[in-house]
């Protein structure tokens, strides 16, 4: 038997039915989604974050623990792609007023994220009810979360640029004492250490990302050492160029000299730099602390420490993961409370987060024996007082235009295609362009 042929009328009717059904679904997701997606009596809490790799695993584990302890909250977490795509998406969601209840944001990007229009402020009383107060955080980092007297971001951690070292090579080069790296005091001392390491292995002593797609390590490198000279890139309000030529040149010429002398691997991208250090070829590696999971997994004999003070103070480049409340047209009620509950819970349980290398921003955790037992993570916890975040500007912060553009410029110094002086001129030109450009997301509060 052949099935009856589909007549045009029937097809049209069917199509109309399907359309109607889609419409019904649409209206459900538009108004009643929270009630349907969460179970009866539950509050839906949507949370967007950008944590992949080892961080992603840690975050998932923490979220699962939270779920287990909070059956009244239906937590729906979405992991989105790190970097520019994430911030594009978060901005658009906030602009539409239909954003998730909670999201992660790099603290240094706050100024460019239109607090008051794309973000809603935290309810500090609500946080205090959960035992989270201003005094529990380093003052500077907490203040960076404020705009116009309101708290738009609550910091979860600091993730600084740190110095990894291969313990066996350093031992061979005579750079260790008592199982730790001997203190390095000053730029010449560091160069000597690299020379000793080179003697021990016959390879450059230091490796760090010098080039590649969206390569930002050269910027981190410059930013760390330049901050050590006491210089700032922009004025404190982020509105004027404050780059000090003499200090910047000192840093750039030092880096160029390390490269020329063959003390640092000249051409290597991010993955390559991990590979070189992991392969036991170099004694030192400069990178964010988050790669700790990679080297622990491979069983490399390594440890890590704060970046030594080469140019004065021991400042280092960093950013902070923080929580924000993306703008919702009708923020409030149980979902908003659930968001505050999760934030407080995450802060108090951030030992698990510290396993990924990050230094918790919630101070009580820094004295937690469980955290102190984490080695080498707790070795560099003091860094939290010396971190150099970008000045507050709309184009600054993780994966921002500042990082990507200046990363490309300083990459040229490391690969040898730009002289330090040329790079400085170019960096200043680009910074001036960025400063002259109107903030595309002017916020109500900024």
């Amino acid at each position, binding site marked *: 038997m052949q099935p009856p042929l589909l007549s045009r009328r029937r097809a049209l009717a069917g199509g109309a039915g399907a359309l109607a059904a889609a419409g019904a679904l649409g209206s459900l997701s538009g108004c009643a989604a929270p009630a349907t997606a969460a179970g009866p009596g539950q509050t839906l809490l949507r949370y967007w974050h950008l944590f992949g790799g080892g961080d992603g695993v840690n975050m998932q584990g923490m979220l699962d623990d939270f779920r287990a302890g909070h059956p009244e909250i239906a937590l729906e977490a979405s992991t989105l792609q790190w970097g520019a795509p994430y911030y594009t998406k978060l901005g*658009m969601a906030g*602009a539409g007023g239909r954003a998730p209840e909670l999201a992660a944001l790099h603290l240094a990007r706050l100024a460019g994220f239109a607090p008051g229009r794309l973000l809603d402020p935290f309810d500090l009383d609500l946080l205090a009810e959960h035992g989270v107060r201003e005094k529990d955080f380093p003052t500077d980092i907490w203040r960076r979360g404020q705009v116009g007297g309101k708290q738009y971001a609550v910091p979860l951690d600091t993730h600084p640029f740190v110095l990894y070292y291969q313990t066996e090579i350093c031992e061979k080069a005579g750079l260790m004492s008592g199982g730790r790296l001997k203190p390095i005091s000053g730029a010449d001392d560091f160069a000597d250490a690299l020379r000793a390491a080179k003697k021990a292995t016959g390879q450059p002593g230091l490796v760090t990302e010098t080039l*590649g*797609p969206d390569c930002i390590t050269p910027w981190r490198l410059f930013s760390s050492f330049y901050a050590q000279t006491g210089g700032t890139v922009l004025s404190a309000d982020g509105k004027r160029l404050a780059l000090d030529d003499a200090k910047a040149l000192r840093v750039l010429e030092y880096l160029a000299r390390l490269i020329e002398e063959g003390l640092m691997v000249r051409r290597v991208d991010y993955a390559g730099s991990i590979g070189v250090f992991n392969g036991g070829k170099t004694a030192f590696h400069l990178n964010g602390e988050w790669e700790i999971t990679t080297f622990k997994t491979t069983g490399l004999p390594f440890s890590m420490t704060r970046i030594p003070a080469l140019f004065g103070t021991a400042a280092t480049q960093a950013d902070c993961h923080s929580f924000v409340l993306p703008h919702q047209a009708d923020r409030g009620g149980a979902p908003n409370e659930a968001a505050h509950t999760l934030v407080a819970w995450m802060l108090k349980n951030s030992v698990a987060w510290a396993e990924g290398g990050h230094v918790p921003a919630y101070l009580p955790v820094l004295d937690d024996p469980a955290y102190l037992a984490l080695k080498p993570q707790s070795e560099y916890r003091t860094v939290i007082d010396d971190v150099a975040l970008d000045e507050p500007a709309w184009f600054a912060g993780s994966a921002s235009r500042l990082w*990507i553009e200046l990363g*490309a410029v300083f990459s*040229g110094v490391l690969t040898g*295609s730009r002289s330090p002086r040329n790079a400085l001129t170019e960096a200043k030109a680009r910074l001036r362009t960025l400063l002259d450009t109107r903030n*595309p*997301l002017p916020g109500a509060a900024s």
Partner: protein
Amino acid sequence: MTSTTAAAPAPVAKPAESAGGRPSRAVHRKWTEHGLVFIAPFLLVYAGFLIWPLISGLHMSLTSENITGTGGEFVGLDNYAEAVRDPEVWSSLWNTVWFTVLSTVPLVVVGLVLALLAHQLRVVQWLWRLSWFAPFLLPSGVVCLLFLNMILPSDFGLADQLLAAVGLTPEIGWLTDERYAMLSIVATTVWWTVGFNFLLYLAALQAIPAHLYEAAELDGAGAGKRLLHITLPMLSRTTGLVVVLQVLASLKIFDQVYIMTGGGPDDSTRPILQYVYQQGFTGYRIGYASAVSYIFFALILTVSLVQPLLSRRRAEEAAK
């Protein structure tokens, strides 16, 4: 439009010819007879997804529109003035043009040579066609990752291994050295897309009447003369088409660079489309990104208009 009449099946071509002679009758015809009813769905899609975005983009380029759809103050030609003064626009535009120059020549020449070879080789012809066309079927992401991870890595990549096999160990930073990065992207693109030009040439070769060659042979023309005086002239229209299609395709370079070098080292391979992407999506400046797009659009439009003009002049000269 020449392209629509060329693509239309033969029966439709007739009324089109007569319509020129008797416009009054044509106007009074029912709209179904014009085929409007049949192309209406296409027209709707065309209007909705091409004409409207074009107008909307032009409008955006005159505003300070940001990624969130807010902002949007009218700023007149400010964005254009800024773009003209922006050295990054010029450097990325230059990278785009340089890539187009570097890639078009080998893509056309290699496509032609492969087609001539495949046309001559009578044994397992399907194999030549398949193997030369096959890379074109792969998505750009696959091709780029293949070159990025297997062929171009210095030290262990196939390219360096081949050099090592002949006794050279230069350890070239194929994608990380400014001297080679663009060339590596060109090489990847040639391998990936030459199949399309090859196919166009092969089809054109097969359309050359055999009696021309027979006559030439009777007159004692050798292989070289036949190639120079029959094959290449008969392929000239195809060559014109291939060159224009290739120039347009190359100008639109984005994927390969985005995946393989991200525009680096030091922005030396960043094409204009990536700059538009950076301004729009990393920098949130949709208005400015639109203005840069329109400057680029003007360039593409110029290139695509030059070809029909040239070929018309050629046709007129031939008719004289």
